């Protein structure tokens, strides 16, 4: 079965998704002779003008409810339109997994761009942070539009970086000029050090980095403070040191940890505070659903509990 590339455009209502997709479709380099299926998951103010698309065909389908996002339904839509590719204008209030976990097997996410209105993003972000983190986290690029001179770009930068260290950021002024965000965000720990020491409050940030960029840590030594967790989901001789992580608020606090091999693995009680010094390798683990960073302990010692028991991912 041929692979169907998916171009995903996310962002809240009135964030400029339709305008951006329209401009993309009007680009002759993007629209030569492709058959495009355009899925509209949100009904905004701006409407598409497909007469301006230079080449190929565009079939528009409206998804009224996230319940319609099923493999079968989406496969049928693609078949009906003979689509070579799919563009999705996603609903700002739906979670990404509603789409990504229900895509037909041959659909492949090629591009994931988030649009945001610079004037409302800070307020939306503060009050709907779980939705922002859901969308901005995996986005490759975040485009802020309506970025007039009085917009605080540092604040936008910070809000994005709380969700994603990777995403490129660009700012589009009302006159159409675009600036790219080139601010560096150095990590608070040195990944090149002989022993990478993680401060107590930086565990969340480090956890995000090691899960996003596991290759950076292969063969390296790390030291961090954690709470022990015994779980049958890791093999014998292993346990899962980790921390309680809060992404948005108390409602979403979850324990995150890494598989750790140690002769003393079974001796640590649940939630007991420990300092772990270990070497990192990449290995298949069922709990990761694949390959991931596994710690091989060099030493584990009891520790004082951290001042802030709950960490954030930023």
């Amino acid at each position, binding site marked *: 079965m041929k692979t169907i590339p998916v171009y995903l455009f996310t962002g809240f*209502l009135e964030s400029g998704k339709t305008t951006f997709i329209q401009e993309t479709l009007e680009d002759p380099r993007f629209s030569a002779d492709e058959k495009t299926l355009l899925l509209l998951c949100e009904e*905004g*103010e701006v409407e598409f003008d497909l007469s301006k698309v230079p080449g190929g065909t565009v079939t528009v389908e409206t998804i009224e409810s996230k319940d319609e996002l099923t493999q079968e339904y989406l496969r049928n839509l693609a078949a009906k339109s003979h689509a070579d590719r799919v563009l999705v204008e996603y609903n700002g209030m739906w979670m990404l997994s509603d789409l990504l976990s229900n895509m037909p097997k041959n659909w492949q996410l090629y591009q994931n761009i988030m649009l945001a209105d610079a004037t409302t993003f800070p*307020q939306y972000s503060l*009050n*709907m*942070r*779980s*939705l922002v983190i859901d969308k901005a986290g995996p986005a490759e690029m975040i485009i802020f539009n309506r970025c007039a001179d009085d917009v605080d770009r540092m604040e936008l930068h910070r809000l994005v970086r709380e969700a994603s260290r990777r995403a490129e950021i660009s700012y589009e002024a009302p006159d159409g000029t675009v600036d790219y965000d080139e601010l560096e965000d150095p990590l608070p720990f040195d990944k090149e050090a002989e022993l990478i020491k993680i401060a107590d409050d930086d565990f969340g940030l480090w956890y995000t980095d090691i899960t996003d960029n596991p290759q950076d840590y292969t063969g390296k030594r790390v030291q961090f403070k954690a709470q022990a967790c015994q779980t049958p989901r890791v093999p014998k001789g292993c346990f899962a040191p980790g921390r309680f992580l809060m992404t948005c608020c108390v*409602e979403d606090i979850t324990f995150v940890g890494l598989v750790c091999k140690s002769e003393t693995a079974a001796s640590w009680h649940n939630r007991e505070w420990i300092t772990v010094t270990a070497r990192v390798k990449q290995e298949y683990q069922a709990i990761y659903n694949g390959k991931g960073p596994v710690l091989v302990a060099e030493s584990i010692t009891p520790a004082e509990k951290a001042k802030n028991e709950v960490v954030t991912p930023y």
Partner: protein
Amino acid sequence: MTRIDIFSGFLGAGKTTLIKKLIAEAFTGEKLVLIENEFGEIGIDGGFMKDAGIEVTEMNSGCICCSLVGDFSTALEKVIHEYQPDRILIEPSGVGKLSDVIRAVEQVAEKNEVMLGSFVAVADAGKAKLYEKNFGEFYNDQIEHASAIILSRTQTVPQDKLETALHILRSHNPHATIITTPWEQLPAEKITEVMNQPAAIERELHELLHEAEHCHNHEQEHHHGHGHHDHDENCSCGCHDEHKEHDHRHGECCCDDHDHEHDYEEEHHHGHEHDHAHEHHHEHGEECSCGCHGHHHADDVFASWGVETIRKYTAEQLKAALKALDEGSYGTVLRAKGIVAGQDGNWLYFDHVPGEADVRTGSADVIGRLCVIGAELDEAALKTLFEV
């Protein structure tokens, strides 16, 4: 006793702007506490609140993924006991449900000496259609549970869009007072006056109570719940002038069923009009702003037609329309009355009895409204006549 007012509204609707106006103009001299449940609003206004001597309590459970009710009741009780204010203003999160906040406040009211005030929904006039569909879970809940819906930015929205907004909001809430007049044209007291209509609030409480009881016999319960308001002096009927006039004559609210007898003793013709007018309002309830429910003894002879409108008129236009009412082609019109926005920025008050029409200017009101009372009214023709 502490009075609690809730100001809900989606993110960016203008809740803070409204609260600031009311604090500065209407709540002066009162001991106030503002409970802030939306992130990112208060930073802007901290200085203002401090200058006004207002306590601000921020709640940390305002975001979309949090459950509100538990913490909220605790925080509210703490505020009541710690400050013993005259009034508590609650600004819930824009992405929260007003019904949840009401329920939490009610729980507190059961155990404390507090009075439930107004349940306001602030709504951006230009976004009703968009938000109804896309943020319905919160937005529609806020509109449906509000005792007063206050539209923001109405001056920047084209007439047809504003009409659509009014239609959408009314379809979600047939009984709340709606304010469509730009805020700067209204004294804050006017806003608090209409948002304080107690009947609508009581109704809200009954509705929530019935919701909680999973009452399916909605229609009946609904009317039942309203029954006792009819005897209330502060009737929520949108047609205020009629009330006042009526009150003068009968010393009672126009909605009182017991008026009936008095009416006959009085000048027969007039008494009839008023009495039946209100009865019939209910039969046409969809379009009328009158909140006085509970009259079931409908009269088949008289009818009323009432509509809220944002249309702007000239005095000449109104005079011509009122003159046309005498022609007979609209049914037998006994009385017409209304308050509407004038094209020159003034507001026009009109009064009509057969052969006699009076149009005068008056102070701005919260929304325009037209009422016609008579027999065999041709509603479609009336709509055309008044261009609504």
